[in-house]
């Protein structure tokens, strides 16, 4: 809802969500979905590699999404070790 208000004002937004169905109902302009617990939408503590993967995916969608309401599921797992 916050993203929609900001986008209406002409500023591009990307939203991370942990509940795909809520994103489907609320319809932010661009959404990436993670499978992580409430309280840690971007990944487990100190797992910088994973957090950056999530943020990078979100920033990619910000730049490349063609369709308003795009929702992308991210495949990453909690505590996943990201190499490189």
């Amino acid at each position: 809802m916050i993203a929609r208000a900001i986008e209406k004002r002409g500023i591009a937004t990307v939203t991370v969500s942990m509940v795909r169905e809520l994103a489907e109902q609320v319809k932010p302009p661009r959404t990436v979905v993670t499978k992580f617990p409430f309280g840690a939408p971007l990944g487990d503590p100190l797992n910088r590699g994973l957090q950056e993967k999530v943020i990078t995916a979100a920033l990619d969608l910000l730049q490349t999404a063609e369709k308003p309401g795009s929702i992308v599921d991210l495949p990453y797992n909690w505590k996943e070790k990201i190499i490189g």
Partner: protein
Amino acid sequence: MSDFLLKMREFIREKWVPNFEYVVNDAADIPWAKLNKRLNQCKVAVISTGGFYQKADHPFDAENPAGDPSYRSIPKTATRADLAIAHTHYDHKYVNEDLNVALPLEIFRQYERRGIIGELAETNYSFMGYIPVAGELINTTAPEVAERLAAAGVDAVFLAPT
């Protein structure tokens, strides 16, 4: 609707807001602003719903059953030690260990240094994500933040839930 959302709705109705219903928006009506600069030229702001506020600021009303639709400014330099949390609907243990899991200012500060983004906005924002009665959020406080972001020349916003 999934079991999870049905159960959550029942819980909210029973405990806090008897006539709670989810917001469902129209697919034909999704706001859309294309990013018309390269990311490394963009001023980017970060928004969290984690109920963060600077210690000198007034806390969110975390006990209110109808929620609290207000927002707080979070400076780009903020660390976990600079902030307090007023939000009773998520476990704070993860952000207490690493603020980046929900309010990734440190990561975005690094992105600025590395030239991945043009810059991180001086002022970022936190809301308190328990807002079952969403009218004031939709009509007043979120548009206010949008106006402030526009006035600050922000090109793009990254939003994370809790």
